[in-house]
């Protein structure tokens, strides 16, 4: 298929990226709202559009286990999941990264149970933030499509060799039709290149043991190497994002700065809410209010240094979390952003908003209200309330 403008839902965009990647193995299990990704992909298999071995596993735990086996075997392996599925995989997420297997996983953000809820919030990926996976958060279908293709190249880079999950917001993006620009199949194939692992199990003439018992005398060194790989991933993510931009006109970095030139009142947010925030920023700027948006794309590795540089000029900052960390001090994004600003001599006033849990809608007015609060903070020089809950009945 030639590169083209097409109408696709988030799930369709993710499935199309997988089709173009044409992984050797896909092992997947259905879960709302990510079900369609594997479902559409299985049709590509049935129609001979890919030559993937499609493994219809009996759980997400087995999906990740099979991907880990396949990747260790020497294959390019993928799966897709959401919410409870990601939670069930948790044990294996650590093992995929610990064994340095470059598995790429489209993930559709959905609230975690209980109470059971199928709609979009970030509690699922936030519960996986310390698993050693690269986490790429997408505003819309275009970003999801582009990021999945980039993720393959990032993960397989010899300096990285880590897995990545690429997320978009459940239903809000996954089931929403948008116009996206697709690469041609050939462009996508050339961009990601061929997977050539240095060592793999199916290379039976060079037998080796993988997943060995690693005790006090080596475990720490292996973990240190993994930490270093995550440190190096930032640079590779930026390089791959630039190369993608050069070739296809859409450049990506660790985050997007929207109207951040001279911005004094800043919202920092991930995912689809960034789109809504952009509209509010444009309105405020028209009225002479120096509003800006920092849309975080890469949550792991967390861009501490780059973020603090970008926020240096802000007077007041609202960090928007679509999940809570249950630590009595706000959301997980807030923790890391606040920590990144610690070394700044002149810090912005910082506040946290927990919003949109269980897919609760967030509109223009709510975001406008946050900017109003930020304005008030700059006027009084005080943070009245550090952690706020936006749009909840109390």
């Amino acid at each position, binding site marked *: 298929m030639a590169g083209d403008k097409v109408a696709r839902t988030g799930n369709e965009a993710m499935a199309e990226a997988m089709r173009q990647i044409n992984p050797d*193995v896909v092992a997947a299990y259905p879960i709302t709202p990510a079900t369609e990704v594997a479902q559409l992909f299985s049709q590509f298999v049935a129609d001979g559009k890919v030559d993937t071995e499609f493994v219809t596993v009996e759980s997400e*735990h*087995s999906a990740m286990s*099979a991907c880990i086996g396949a990747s260790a*075997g020497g294959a390019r392996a993928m799966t897709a999941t959401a919410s409870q599925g990601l939670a069930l995989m948790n044990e294996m997420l650590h093992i995929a990264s610990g064994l340095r297997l470059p598995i790429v996983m489209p993930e559709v953000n959905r609230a975690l149970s209980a109470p059971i809820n199928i709609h979009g919030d970030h509690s699922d990926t936030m519960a996986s933030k310390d698993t050693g996976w690269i986490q790429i958060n997408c505003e819309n279908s275009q970003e999801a499509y582009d990021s999945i293709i980039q993720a393959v190249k990032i993960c397989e880079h010899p300096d990285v060799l880590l897995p990545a999950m690429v997320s978009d917001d459940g239903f809000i993006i996954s089931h929403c039709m948008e116009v996206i620009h697709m690469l041609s199949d050939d462009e996508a194939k050339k961009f990601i290149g061929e997977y050539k692992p240095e060592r793999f199990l199916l290379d039976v003439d060079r037998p080796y*043991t*993988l997943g*060995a018992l690693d005790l006090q005398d080596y475990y720490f060194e292996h973990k240190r190497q993994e930490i270093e790989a995550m440190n190096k991933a930032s640079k590779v993510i930026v390089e791959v994002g630039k190369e993608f931009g050069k070739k296809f006109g859409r450049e990506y970095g660790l985050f997007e700065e929207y109207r951040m030139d001279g911005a004094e009142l800043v919202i920092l947010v991930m995912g689809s809410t960034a789109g809504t925030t952009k509209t509010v920023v444009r309105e405020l700027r028209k009225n002479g209010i120096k509003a800006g948006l920092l849309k975080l794309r890469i949550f792991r590795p967390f861009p501490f240094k780059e973020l603090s540089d970008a926020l240096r000029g802000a007077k007041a900052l609202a960090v928007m979390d679509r999940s809570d960390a249950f630590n009595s001090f706000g959301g997980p994004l807030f923790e890391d952003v606040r920590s990144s600003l610690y070394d700044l001599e002149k810090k912005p006033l910082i506040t946290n908003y927990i919003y949109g849990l269980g897919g609760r809608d967030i509109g223009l007015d709510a975001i406008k209200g946050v900017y109003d609060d930020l304005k008030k903070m700059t006027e009084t020089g005080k943070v009245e309330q550090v952690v706020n809950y936006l749009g909840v009945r109390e």
Partner: protein
Amino acid sequence: MPGIKELAKREEQMTGGHRLCSGCGAGIMARQVLLAASKHKVICTSSTGCLEVATTIFPYSSWKVPFFHSAFENSAATCSGIEAAYQALKRKGKVDKDIKFIAFGGDGGTYDIGLQSLSGAMERGHNMLYVCYDNGAYMNTGIQRSSASPRGSHTTTGPSGKVSYGKKQYRKDLTEIMASHHIPYAAQTSIGNWRDLTTKVEKALDTEGPSFINIFTPCRLGWAYDPAITIELAKLASDTHYWPMYEVVNGEYKLSYKPKEKKPYKEFLQLQGRFKHMLKNEELVNEIEEEIERRWNRLLKLCGEEVQQ
């Protein structure tokens, strides 16, 4: 069927120097399986357990074949992923060898926490052999009860005490569960009979599609016996009808071994510390013996053998 002389000439695929206990059945089991498999190129996976932790202490490994371990409950799913990678890469011309796949798991990783993963892999029909080495408890974590532990046995989570004789339930019949998946080859064997074990492994690896072998594997530490009698105990388990050896080939049951004379179950019990507390409880021993006979007779019928009353 390889003779002992031929097996002795084959190159060992699992080296010594590992940290399994002296007299450990699992080491004997893995060595026999690999010797039987040695005409093929094989890749092995294992669930977390004694076999894995004692043979792969980094940077050492006893495995001369590619070996992979990821977690406890997923040896089958992991192996199915490697097998899927093999199918894909072979189709694409990136792998040209013929390779066989063997997943190992103990009874904890197979009967209990890994049952779902095993069932899924068998149902999907991957071309792989799953080997369960059944030593009747979670030995690696310190002899906890499993659904394969025999009734009356003392385990650290089902201990015998002033008001308890140990495990209350009979063991789950996993080989039957696997046969009910209608896979082309399911079998039960024992390290007490090397010929039967190696023959079954050969058959399983020559079978197209999924196969399963349940191997009786004594554990000297968990069963508390003299490490010199590992093989003798394994033989006794079959001679007492406690561990029948049979196979189910495309749905057809076949008995592999019929002791000339059935030995009393008590002979098996009295050699092991885990049953010490119940030797005087004749009522319990008789009850268990009756259940063993009921299961044995049921198997004889399935195998088309004459049932002795």
